[in-house]
C-alpha cells in the first residue's frame, strides 16, 4: 500500500514539474490558440479558412438560386472566382454567366434528375420564368406589342413550361440579395482576414439593399481585422463618395487607399492592377465633378498607364483639357 502511495505521489510530482516547465513555453508558443479571443479560431484553428471559403461560395450559390457547379462539374482552367465578387468589382461577364456548366444530359438518369434540382442559370430577383422579355419588363423596358407574355407583370414568378400554376399576380420581389448576407457574415466570422468578404457584402448592402450604414460598419469591422487594407479603404471611400456625398472625406480615403496600394500591392509580382484602376477612376470622377480638372487629368494620366482602354482615357483627358462641362464626358469604367 505504501509503495502504491509513493508511486502516485511521485507521478503527481513529475506531472507538476512538467507542467511548470511546459506551461510558460506553451503560452509563448506561436502556434498556441489560447492567444486568440476568437472562439472559432480556438476551436477550428486554420481549418476555419476552409469553412470561410465554403460559406463565401455558398453565398455565390444563393445568388444563383442553387444553380452552382460542384467539384465534379468544374473543368480544367475554370475560373473559380465567385460571381458575386465579380459583380462587386464591376467585372461581371454576361457570356460566362450564360454558360451552362451542366451541358447536355449524358444519359436518361441525368436528363430525368435535372427536374429535381436547380438546373437553369438564374440570379436572385430574376423573373423565374426565364423569358428574356420578362427580364426586360422587370427592368422597366416593357414587353413588345406582339409579345406572347405581354400580359405578364414585371418581375413576376411563375413555373416553367406551363406545367404548373402561374403566379402572375405576385409583385416584383426586390431586395432578394439579402439572402446571401448570412453566409457572408459567417464567412467573415470564420476568417476575418478574408478581405473579399467585406468588400462584396458591403457592395450588395449599399447598392441593392440600401443599407449604407450597415455596409460602412461592416467595412470598418474589416479594417479593424485588416488594418490599412487598400481594397476595404477603396470600398469605404466609394460609400462616402457615391452614397454619403461627402466629397472631402471620400477624397481623403481614396487617396489613402491609393497610397496603401502602392505600399502593399506595388511590390507584389502580380499586383492588383484592377483595384488601382478603380481607385484612380473614382478619384478622377470625383475631381472632375468638383471641377478640379488638373487633378482629374493627373488621375486619368495615371489610369491610362494601367488601363487597356488607353485611347478612350486619352480622349477624356483631351476633353478635360478643353474644359468641357463634366456632363459631356461619359463615365469611364
Amino acid at each position: 500500500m505504501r509503495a502504491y502511495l509513493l508511486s502516485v505521489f511521485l507521478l503527481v510530482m513529475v506531472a507538476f514539474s512538467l507542467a511548470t516547465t511546459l506551461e510558460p513555453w506553451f503560452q509563448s508558443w506561436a502556434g498556441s490558440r489560447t492567444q486568440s479571443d476568437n472562439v472559432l479560431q480556438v476551436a477550428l484553428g486554420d481549418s476555419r479558412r476552409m469553412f470561410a471559403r465554403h460559406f463565401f461560395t455558398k453565398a455565390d450559390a444563393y445568388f444563383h438560386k442553387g444553380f452552382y457547379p460542384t467539384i465534379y462539374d468544374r473543368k480544367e482552367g475554370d475560373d473559380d472566382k465567385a460571381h458575386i465578387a465579380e459583380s462587386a468589382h464591376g467585372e461581371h461577364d454576361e457570356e460566362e454567366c450564360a454558360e451552362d456548366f451542366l451541358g447536355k444530359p449524358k444519359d436518361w438518369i441525368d436528363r430525368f434528375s435535372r427536374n429535381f434540382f436547380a438546373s437553369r442559370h438564374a440570379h436572385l430577383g430574376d423573373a423565374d420564368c426565364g423569358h428574356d422579355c420578362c427580364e426586360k419588363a422587370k427592368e422597366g423596358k416593357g414587353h413588345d406589342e406582339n409579345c406572347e407574355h405581354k400580359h405578364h407583370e414585371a418581375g413576376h414568378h411563375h413555373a416553367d413550361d406551363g406545367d404548373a400554376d402561374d403566379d402572375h399576380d405576385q409583385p416584383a420581389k426586390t431586395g432578394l440579395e439579402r439572402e446571401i448576407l448570412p453566409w457572408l457574415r459567417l464567412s467573415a466570422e470564420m476568417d476575418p482576414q478574408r478581405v473579399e468578404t467585406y468588400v462584396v457584402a458591403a457592395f450588395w448592402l449599399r447598392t441593392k439593399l440600401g443599407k449604407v450604414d450597415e455596409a460602412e460598419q461592416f467595412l470598418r469591422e474589416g479594417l479593424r481585422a485588416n488594418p490599412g487594407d487598400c481594397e476595404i479603404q477603396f470600398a469605404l471611400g466609394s460609400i462616402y463618395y457615391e452614397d454619403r456625398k461627402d466629397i472631402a472625406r471620400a477624397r481623403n480615403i481614396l487617396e489613402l487607399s491609393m497610397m496603401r496600394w502602392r505600399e502593399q500591392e506595388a511590390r507584389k509580382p502580380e499586383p492588383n492592377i484592377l483595384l488601382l484602376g478603380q481607385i484612380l477612376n473614382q478619384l478622377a470622377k470625383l475631381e472632375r465633378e468638383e471641377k478640379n480638372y488638373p487633378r482629374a487629368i493627373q488621375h486619368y494620366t495615371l489610369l491610362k498607364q494601367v488601363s487597356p482602354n488607353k485611347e478612350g482615357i486619352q480622349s477624356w483627358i483631351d476633353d478635360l483639357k478643353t474644359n468641357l462641362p463634366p456632363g459631356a464626358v461619359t463615365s469611364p469604367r
Partner: protein
Amino acid sequence: MNPTTNSLGTVRLPEIAAEADRSGTLNNVFAIAGVVIKEMYRRKDFYVLFVLTALITLLMGSVTFFNQENIVRYLKEICLFLIWGASLVITITTAARQIPAEREQRTLFPLLAKPVTRNQLVIGKFLGCWLASGISLLLFYLFFGAVAGAKEHEWPVLNYFQAAVLHWFMLGIVCALTMLGSVVFDAPSSTNTIMLIVSVGILLIGRHLNKVALKLEEPAQTIVYAIYFALPHLELFDVRDLIVHNWALIPWHIWAAGLAYAVVYSAIFLALACLAFRRKAIN
C-alpha cells in the same frame, strides 16, 4: 369447383378461401406494422431528434444579419438539412433493429407460429417502419412549413407536398434496403453504420458517378457506369434546393415517375429481403 378445407375444418369454395387468405395476409401485415408504429412513439429517438431540430432552427431563426428583416433561405436550408439527417437516422435505426430484436428477444418463433409467414413478417416490418417514418416526416414538415411561413409570409403548400412525398418515398427505398441489411448482417449496429454510409454516399456522389466514369479508362469506366445505373438514385428525391430557392413546382408527371422509380427499387430490395430471410436459419 373443388371444395377446400380451412384450419377450422369447414368446407369453402376456392375463391372464398383465397380471399380469406388475402385478407388474413393483409391483417397480419397491418398488425405487425401497427406494432412497429407503436414502438416508434414509445421510443425517445423521434422526440429527441425533433426537439433538437426545432431548437437549432429556432435559435438560427432568432439571429439577425445587418438589421435586415425577412432573410429566410438560410433558415430553410438549415431546417431541411436537419430534417433530412433526422429522418435518415430514424428510418435506418428503426428498420435495422426490427428482425434482430425479434430474434434476440426470442419472440420470432411465437410470431412465426401464429401463423405469420416469413414474407408477411418482413413486409409488415417494412410497412411499419415506412409508415412510422412517414408520420415523423409529416410532423417535421409541418414544423418546417410553420417556420418558413412565419418568416417568408408565403405558403407554397404544393411545393412542400411534392418535397415531403418524394422524401417519404426515398425513405421507403432506404427502409427496404435496411431490412435487407438487417437480414444479411447479424448486428443492428453494423447494419446502421453500413446503411448510413451507403445512403449518405449515394446522396453525395450518386448524381456525379457518370461524370467520374467518363474520366476513367476502360474497364473501370464500364464498371463505374454500371454501378451508376444499378444504384438507387436517392439524390433524385432531394429537392431541398428547389424548396429553399423557391423554384417552381416539379411537373406532376415527372414527380409521379420519380415515385414510381422509388416503388420499383423498394420492391426489389424488399423481395431480396424476403428471399434472404426465407433462407436464413432463425434459431
